[in-house]
């Protein structure tokens, strides 16, 4: 196994398209025995897609894969597993109500006659635990375990299947710091035995700590490959973020006015009951776009959900235009004169099966303007929606067309039209251009700038740095639930922001 020149995995010229999006373009990737190789890149850079192809989860449109010098055609994960490739996704594939042991032997042929051979399976499991120091009670039910322990079960599951190429998709995203240290020890002991690990991440510090080699992806392509010992967090940040040409957006000089949003000591838990935001303080003023940069998963979703009334914080206060916001009620948020652009426009923002008109009137259908004694004033509603379709140039077969028939850009226009119709004084735009093409993106950017000139205060939450730099008057970086740094939009350096985003406080 000592021969480091012979790759155990070779992926050459891999291309993968989803409808009209190219997730991987002519990507070549090698993995050597006994190394931890990090795949580094922003959200949507194509890291996970590439590894899902190696795991047989997706088939590639072009390119070749060799595993242990053998050309392979992976139609399903079982083909990859039988060749020693295992992958642990961000969302674990465990059965909560079953025990650790039962979860580990699922799908393996450890049986005698029609009975499960639990005894020898347990023996094998205990040996593995001994060897890699992964101590977990085999009889514990999975739902009683912490996330870190569940991850150990996943690793054991892979080892039990004799996996010597282990892919881990953002394994630290769900872990507490102590658990991360544990995980790193385990990974080290794996590669010491000659196994290989692919570590997908966008956290620079961790990548610098754990990996032997780093491959940087951007926009579906490999942009660089470095030995970890020969690079720095600073260089990686630049490579990851890139320096692309920016669209030109003209912004008038406007002095910020009164605060429209004032967040004081906000504390919020995420779905796993871990702290998502810790004592967050934030002010957004009239005529100001505050860009909140950060890798997704650092508390942005929870912050927007609290503002939208979809989640209750554990502590703190939010003041909007001098009035305290009632938590946990979407209606209260709507009434506070807030325009709300959720990051998940398809599941949260819009009703895809309803018509465009029905989506446009969602928030004010019960106002006196549109109903009387529970009867809808259809004339006025038609007028209202036709006006908005015209004003926002929404491309649709008509106000009665099903919303799901619209393109992504037009869906977002419906969203904007509805949320901005009431001229809100505060706008929360969460990932407003995610997944949109350049044309739609520009339209939305211009619209946001226009709202700023009208006098609104805008909180722009985005993991797209180009967008943050193009629009923001002021930039803050959210990292692990806290504001790690703040800089004026005009003079902030991409490098500095990139470092903050990766948790490097300098």
């Amino acid at each position, binding site marked *: 196994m000592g021969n480091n020149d012979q790759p155990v995995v070779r992926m050459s010229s891999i291309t993968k398209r989803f409808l009209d999006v190219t997730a991987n373009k002519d990507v070549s990737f090698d993995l050597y025995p006994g190394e931890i190789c990090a795949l580094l890149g922003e959200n949507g850079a194509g890291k996970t897609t590439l590894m899902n192809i190696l795991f047989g989860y997706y088939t590639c449109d072009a390119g070749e894969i060799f595993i242990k010098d053998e050309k392979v055609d992976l139609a399903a994960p079982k083909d990859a597993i039988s060749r020693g490739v295992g992958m642990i996704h961000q969302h674990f594939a465990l059965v909560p109500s079953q025990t650790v042991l039962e979860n580990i032997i699922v799908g393996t042929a450890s049986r005698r006659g029609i009975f499960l051979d639990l005894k020898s399976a347990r023996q094998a499991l205990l040996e593995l635990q001994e060897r890699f120091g992964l101590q977990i009670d085999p009889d514990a039910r999975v739902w009683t375990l912490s996330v870190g322990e569940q991850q150990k079960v996943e690793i054991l599951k892979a080892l039990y299947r004799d996996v010597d190429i282990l892919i881990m998709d953002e394994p630290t995203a769900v872990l507490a710091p102590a658990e991360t240290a544990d995980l790193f020890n385990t990974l080290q002991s794996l590669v010491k035995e000659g196994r290989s690990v692919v570590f997908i991440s966008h956290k620079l510090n961790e990548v610098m700590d754990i990996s032997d080699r780093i491959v940087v992806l951007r926009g579906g392509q490999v942009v660089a490959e470095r030995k970890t010992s020969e690079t720095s967090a600073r260089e990686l940040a630049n490579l990851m973020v890139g320096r692309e040409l920016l669209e030109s957006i003209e912004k008038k000089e406007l002095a910020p006015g009164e605060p429209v949003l004032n967040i004081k000591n906000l504390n919020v838990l995420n779905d796993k009951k871990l702290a998502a935001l810790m004592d967050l303080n934030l002010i957004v003023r009239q005529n100001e776009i505050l860009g909140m940069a950060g890798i997704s998963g650092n508390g942005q979703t929870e912050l927007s959900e609290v503002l939208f009334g*979809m989640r209750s914080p554990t502590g703190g206060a939010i003041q909007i235009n001098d009035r305290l916001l009632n938590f946990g009620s*979407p209606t209260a948020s*709507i009434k506070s004169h807030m325009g709300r652009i959720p990051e998940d426009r398809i599941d949260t923002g819009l009703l895809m099966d*309803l018509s465009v008109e029905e989506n446009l009137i*969602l928030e004010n259908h019960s106002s006196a303007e549109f109903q009387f004694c*529970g*009867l*809808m004033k259809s004339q006025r509603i038609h007028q209202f929606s036709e006006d908005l379709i015209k004003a926002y140039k929404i491309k649709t077969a008509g106000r009665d067309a099903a919303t799901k028939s619209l393109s992504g850009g037009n869906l977002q226009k419906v969203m904007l039209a509805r949320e901005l119709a009431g001229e809100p004084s505060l706008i929360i735009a969460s990932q407003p251009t995610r997944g949109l093409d350049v044309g739609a993106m520009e339209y939305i950017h211009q619209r946001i700038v226009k709202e700023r000139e009208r006098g609104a205060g805008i909180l722009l939450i985005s993991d797209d740095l180009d967008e943050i730099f193009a629009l923001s008057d002021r930039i803050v970086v959210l990292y692990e639930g806290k504001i790690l740094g703040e800089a004026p939009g005009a003079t902030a350096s991409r490098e500095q922001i990139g470092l903050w985003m990766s948790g490097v406080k300098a």
Partner: protein
Amino acid sequence: MIRFRIIKRKPLPGWAKIVIPIAAILATLILSAIPILLAGGHLWKSYFYLFHGALGTRYNLLETFVKASPLLLTGLAVAFAFRAKFWNIGAEGQLLAGALTATVLGVNLGGIPSILVLPIVIIAGFLAGGLWASIPALLKTKLKVDDVVSTLLLNYVMIHIMGALLFGPLQQPGSSWPRSSAIVKAACYPILMPRSRFHMGIIISFVAMLIIWFINKKTTFGYQAKAVGFNIRAAHFGGINTTSVILWTALISGGLAGLAGVGELCALQYRLIMDISPGYGYSGIVIAMLGNLHPVGVLFSSLFFSVIIVGAQTMSRMTGVPTYIAEVIQGMALMVMLIFLLFTEFKIKVLRK
């Protein structure tokens, strides 16, 4: 190697809404030939008597409407609930709650002005069904109890409550059968056509159909229920009080089923018996699905069902094919319709490799 893949298709034009149910019914009748032939029936003769028996004479035609009335109401009940994704499988129990309440009032309301008796019985029957349905709705919204299970199980609770009362306090004095005393004259639905059983309840069910159609189409509540049904998260995000929408939906849905029970009691049986409903509540589920949850669709599917049920009797008498064939045809109709509806959204693509 040829492989098949199911892919989404572009939305079909508006005429498909009319063509598809008709095509589904034709396909059902073609498929139903198999069990009819297996039962040893003569095909054309069987179909002739099936339709002649339901539509051929004045009495039979009116009888088809009599049969359609409870089916229309339970179908509407289920369709209205399903539209808001309140999975009401409990129309049977809600129907019984309505019939039970109508019995208690109908037997005992002799003393008040007779003009008031029927309105009281009808409203109380509606409320009884509605309240019975609001129990699972409360459990769903407050405690996240699965509504499929709770609505279904409450059917059995209601059947046994009814049984306990019919063998106890409600039993007709001197009778050894589980049946109640007859309701007073003023509590009976008027018969609207001489020499038939065409009663006021049929009009009530048609009016209910129009009201539900109006609620769905014209009111803010109908809009909110639709939004909750299609995407409860987005509805909540948009400021709709989803809890209240689900509760009101349950109340109206159960109320409609309760009206079906009132109708069976006050127009046909005049006294409560254990088998007051031959499973109308369950048929309502099939009818609602067959009608694609649309009130007009429910109207036509309930009429189709009653044609099959009423006609099967004549068919059986004249050709010897058992009446059970009616249930086979009903089941077949639902399966065919569901498959046809699937193909309005998807198509099969043949891949050659």
